[in-house]
């Protein structure tokens, strides 16, 4: 039987082989390459990108906020709407309001600190109302939360020691997933066993072509998907 790809509007497929990101659910993204992950996910949506972030050095030339000319490589910067908050309380309120609004492409929230379990549940309820893709970026160590997924994104050195400026290698690890078990293809013959849960993906992004591919972990000898042109 041929594999049928279903593109449901309720989820975002970053690339073939990666578990899709559900809409209307909180997805936590951490690690040093989280901004790129958020930008790639946002590029797959339509409508405004509402980005709530702490107002550190707001208005100064080198503030820590997202840098639109850099993000241009991934998405149209005209879609960006930044909401700058000055306190943890404001951040929580603004994220909740943005999540609850409908018709927003993606809500990206950056918090001052880890949300409490109650707050995280409130986010989840608001996200269900709004139904937009909801990403929470965190720099702090993760805590128990009501999030559906938690990704840790790391950038990796180029595999064979050669400089590859156009392509970037990331290791995306799924640390938490409430959407179901993901079976690694070709292993265990379809039987469910704890070891068949796939949790790590090595992803190559080509800045020139904008393509995103899964690749085998360096040194494993397995090739999961062609690296592409």
């Amino acid at each position, binding site marked *: 039987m041929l594999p049928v790809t279903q593109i449901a509007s309720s989820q975002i497929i970053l690339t073939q082989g990666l578990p899709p990101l559900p809409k209307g659910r909180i997805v936590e993204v951490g690690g*040093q*390459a989280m*901004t*790129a992950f958020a*930008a790639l996910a946002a590029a797959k949506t*339509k*409508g*405004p990108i*509402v980005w709530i972030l702490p*107002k550190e*050095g*707001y*208005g*100064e*030339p*080198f*503030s*820590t*906020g*997202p*840098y*639109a*000319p*850099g*993000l*241009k*490589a*991934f998405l149209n*910067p*005209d879609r*960006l*709407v*930044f*909401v*700058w*908050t000055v306190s943890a309380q*404001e951040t929580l*309120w*603004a994220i909740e*309001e*943005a999540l609850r*609004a*409908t*018709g*927003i*492409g993606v809500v990206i929230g950056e918090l001052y600190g880890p949300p409490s379990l109650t707050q995280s549940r409130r986010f989840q309820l608001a996200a269900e109302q709004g139904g937009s893709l909801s990403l929470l970026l965190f720099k702090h160590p993760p805590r128990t939360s009501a999030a559906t997924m938690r990704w840790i994104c*790391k*950038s*990796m*050195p*180029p595999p064979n*020691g050669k*400089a590859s*400026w156009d392509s*970037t*290698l990331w290791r995306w690890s799924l640390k938490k997933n409430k959407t179901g078990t993901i079976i690694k293809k070709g292993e265990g013959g379809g039987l469910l066993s704890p070891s068949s849960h796939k949790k790590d993906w090595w992803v190559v*992004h080509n*800045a020139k072509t904008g393509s995103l591919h899964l690749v085998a972990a360096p040194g494993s000898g397995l090739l999961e998907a062609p690296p592409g042109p």
Partner: protein
Amino acid sequence: MVAEEKNALRLFSLTEGALATGLHQGMPLTDAKGVLPDLLTQVREERSEADLLITLHRWAERYSPWRAMEGHDALLLDITGCSHLWGGEAPMAEDIAQALEGFGFRTHLAVADSKGAALTAARFTDEALTLIPPGRSTQVLGALPLTALGDKAYDLRRLGLKTLADVAALPRAEMAKRFGYDLMLRLDETLGTRSTPVSPTKAARPYAARMSFPDPIGLLSDVTMGLEKVLGSLCRQLREDGRGARLVELSLNHADGEETVRQVGLAEPCQNPNLILRQFTPLLEKVDAGFGIDRMRVIAITHEGYTERQLSSETEQVGSDKLTELVGRLGNRLGFDRIAMPRPTGSHLPGFDVRQAEAVSRPETSSWPPSSAPLPLRLTPPRPVEPLSAGRPPGRFRCQDTVHEITHARGPRRVAGEWWQNDRARHPTYDYWDVQTRDGARLWLRCDVNPQGERRWMATGELP
């Protein structure tokens, strides 16, 4: 006073002293400077002139309720039935002239039995005050030169005609055949033989609604219900004129004489009472009603033309609608300056090439300049890099307590400073390097280009 006209700066109005030296209106400024090298000039400000005329228009209500503005320099009063209050037309005109002189204006005043005749007399005679008795306008104005007829004057002068009376004396049918019927109409208007009505300028209408209560109210649900009704009436007024509110003020009069005033801003012109009410709801919750509220009033302080938009099923359209609502809600609590959309500034310096445009002002979509090299997704404040080995860039370095080892580097990309800017932070020239570290991160290093050959390295961001 100078103004640009026909591709040259020309004299627009002159003081009496300047007129005495032989300068005249419409003369190019360069010629005038040749005649009078130390001529003092000032550029004409049409906006403030128009504002002044509007102010005078309002002031003139003391003379007549029926007033209009004509062109950029004339004020018309229909004084039918008003002049007897001043004891006749002449004393009234003198009173007006004196009052205007008191303000410091030099004016030309004319009273005539028709609008056209009064305008002609005021604009083309030299006297400060012209009184034309009823039915005598042709005789009084006939001696005026042909310039009063506008652009046809040159052709008429070639026929040997000199005054308005000369033109009026010729057979009308022949003249109309040769110069067009427009000329005859213009002549009639100028001489006042054909009367044109004075159509008064419409006064700006305030958009406001109020409601008084027989007994003071204090419950939040009651106040909300009252506000809903008042806003409904406000929005009906706005809808009638095709306007939409941008800033709405609510004032609540308390039973003990106090007043609470709250304002909400809207991200785009709005006629929907529910949307405005939703912005007020969180503010109302915080109002202390005290002994109760007995009167409320809403005013649309700022309003704009409202364009009805067709709702389309496209996600983009609906998205922008919903975004407007969200921006309004967030902005009314956080402040509208905190909700921004990035837009390019046209500068080529990293960090100075983006400005944050307030989302409430609905910035235009823009064309972003293409970037030649990959840029970081986030800029960080420059962090000093301490080199641990030689090289350009250093093979090993410490940055914020982390030691990085470089496997590959690419650069330099030199970005010259903007020395013409006032901001000193924009002046220096930097070299930018992309470096690949052993642990996977790609850093964006900045190197100060220093004439002494001394290099200072900074990390300013992380490349994707």
